[in-house]
């Protein structure tokens, strides 16, 4: 019996890890330059290169790192930095939640190992894949971005300047562009229309009225609220879950830690 389905992809196939890494290739120039800018800033703020790389590989969240390194002083304001990091990275609760279909039916250890290397970029690229149930793809993108990010950090730290200004080549716009483009790939049909409009309006209002990255939460919250209000029972099994309908309802009701082999059904 060979029924195609997400359960047949291994947890971390080397082939899917490689494809995940290639999929993040368009982000290489901007990630390396921003990594270098952070390296220059860290050198000025008195972090050692070792500390910076330790941060890049354990925290792995660009915008929070920029704010933290900027707040860094000789006596480290630890509480301020950790609170700022928590606020800026709060969107990862939502990003983590939205990754549920990627980890459908996977054991807990796969989730524990994969969730560290989740940045906005590899998350967005992964969520637009046709077959979502593929944690290796997500991890591959994360490893690639981590290596590029750390390489940029090192280059910036050692060169200590002479880094091209990202704005000149519109490299700062690369992240905006990639997220805008990937939004098109997330369109699942007209049920998305009102939640997306609400998210756009919410984030615009948040942008003008709230500090920092709260606009992300304002927009996502507005989108979620409208999605909840516009739901009707007949909408079930539309969109994303429909892709797995062939697996039978049991496939996505799979208990933690089991990938249902077809023989058991």
């Amino acid at each position, binding site marked *: 019996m060979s029924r195609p389905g997400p359960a047949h992809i291994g947890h971390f196939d080397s082939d899917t890890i490689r494809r995940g890494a290639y999929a993040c290739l368009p982000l290489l120039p901007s990630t390396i330059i921003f990594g270098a800018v952070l390296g220059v800033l860290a050198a000025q703020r008195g972090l050692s290169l070792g500390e910076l790389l330790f941060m890049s590989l354990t925290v792995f969240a660009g915008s929070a790192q920029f704010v933290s390194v900027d707040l860094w002083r000789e006596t*480290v304001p630890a509480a301020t930095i950790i609170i700022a990091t928590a606020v800026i*990275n709060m969107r990862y609760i939502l*990003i983590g*939640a939205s990754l549920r279909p990627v980890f459908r039916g996977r054991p807990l250890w796969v989730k524990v190992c994969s*969730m560290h290397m989740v940045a906005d970029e590899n998350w967005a690229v992964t969520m637009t894949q046709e077959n979502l149930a593929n944690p290796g793809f997500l991890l591959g993108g994360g490893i690639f971005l981590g290596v590029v990010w750390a390489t940029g950090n090192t280059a910036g730290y050692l060169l200590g300047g002479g880094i091209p200004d990202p704005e000149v080549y519109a490299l700062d716009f690369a992240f905006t562009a990639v997220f805008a483009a990937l939004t098109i790939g997330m369109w699942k049909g007209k049920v998305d229309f009102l939640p*997306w409009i609400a998210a756009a309006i919410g984030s615009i209002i948040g942008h003008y009225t709230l500090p920092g990255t709260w*606009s992300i939460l304002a927009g996502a919250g507005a989108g979620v609220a409208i999605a909840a209000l516009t*739901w009707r029972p007949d909408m079930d099994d539309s969109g994303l879950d429909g892709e797995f309908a062939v697996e039978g309802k049991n496939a996505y009701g799979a208990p933690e830690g089991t990938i249902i082999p077809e023989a058991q059904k």
Partner: protein
Amino acid sequence: MIAFPDLTTFSLEAVLTILGMAAVTYGMRLGGLLMADRLPQHGRWAHVLERLPGAVLISVWVPSALSAGAIGIAGAAATVITMALARNLFAAMAVGMVFVGVGRYFIGN
């Protein structure tokens, strides 16, 4: 820089601060996923969860396009249109970035 870059100093307070940052960040990443696993697989909340990635993504880039000014808004529109027509990430990014780069060169922000 005059002194050779400081490569290997690890101060205790720096390491603890970084570990604190890492713990809250990883906790939210994994916590979000594990919370979503507890939500129903069908019905209203499953529907909401499916709309979530698009809503988050839009809320990430719309404000940053606004921050980049009129040229940023136009560049984002150009990117979205190119992606809708060509369905090619490289092409869409290139159009948006060239648009913004050229726009800044000739017009300024």
